[in-house]
């Protein structure tokens, strides 16, 4: 199992609430990612970071924001949750083995907005 942790595993909240999904890794990886995944669908990259104080938007437009103040921590925040934000959110970090990089994923946060 990879040393990357997401909390909470499940979150059910009402519309308009502000939420933060936590992601931490203890592998010292510089690169971290947030993916969004709906059932039976591909993973969509919504945010990534190549190091402290570096964040970029991914391929799928998202109303969420991220921060990277420490190497090990990459939280995702929704200022005002809506039902359209209901989805699974997966955090990952990548480590290099020679020339190749592979992703290590957390267990995910299943978000339901009522």
């Amino acid at each position, binding site marked *: 199992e990879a040393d990357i942790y997401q909390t909470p595993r499940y979150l059910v909240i009402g519309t308009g609430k502000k939420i933060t999904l936590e992601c931490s890794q203890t592998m010292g990886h510089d690169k971290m990612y947030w993916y969004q995944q709906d059932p039976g669908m591909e993973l969509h990259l919504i945010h990534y970071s190549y190091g402290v104080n570096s964040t970029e938007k991914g391929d799928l437009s998202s109303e969420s924001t991220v921060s990277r103040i420490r190497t090990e921590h990459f939280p995702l925040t929704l200022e005002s949750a809506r039902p359209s934000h209901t989805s699974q959110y*997966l955090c990952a970090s990548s480590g290099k083995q020679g020339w190749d990089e592979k992703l290590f994923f957390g267990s995910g946060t299943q978000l339901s907005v009522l």
Partner: protein
Amino acid sequence: SQQGEEDPQALSIQEGENATMNCSYKTSINNLQWYRQNSGRGLVHLILIRSNEREKHSGRLRVTLDTSKKSSSLLITASRAADTASYFCATDVKVDRGSTLGRLYFGRGTQLTVWP
């Protein structure tokens, strides 16, 4: 889209049979990776094959890559009920001078069910 596309979308087999899943992609790649996802969990890396490799083995897994056809296959031999999961291919896209975009593009996955 530069994403990989897995085929079939779903596969149902008996224990002991072999399972083959295919992946097609659209652009030049540095490598192609296969991941497994158990229901409601994160993805786990299985195997990576570089663009200059044609075949790779890891335990009961065999991956092939045909860059001329932009396709890859994942074979799981002697499948077990515990192999039941979704399997995703992911591509590391090559840009100018062989460098990478630094992130992976995933397909929709193949849902494999292995019956005891």
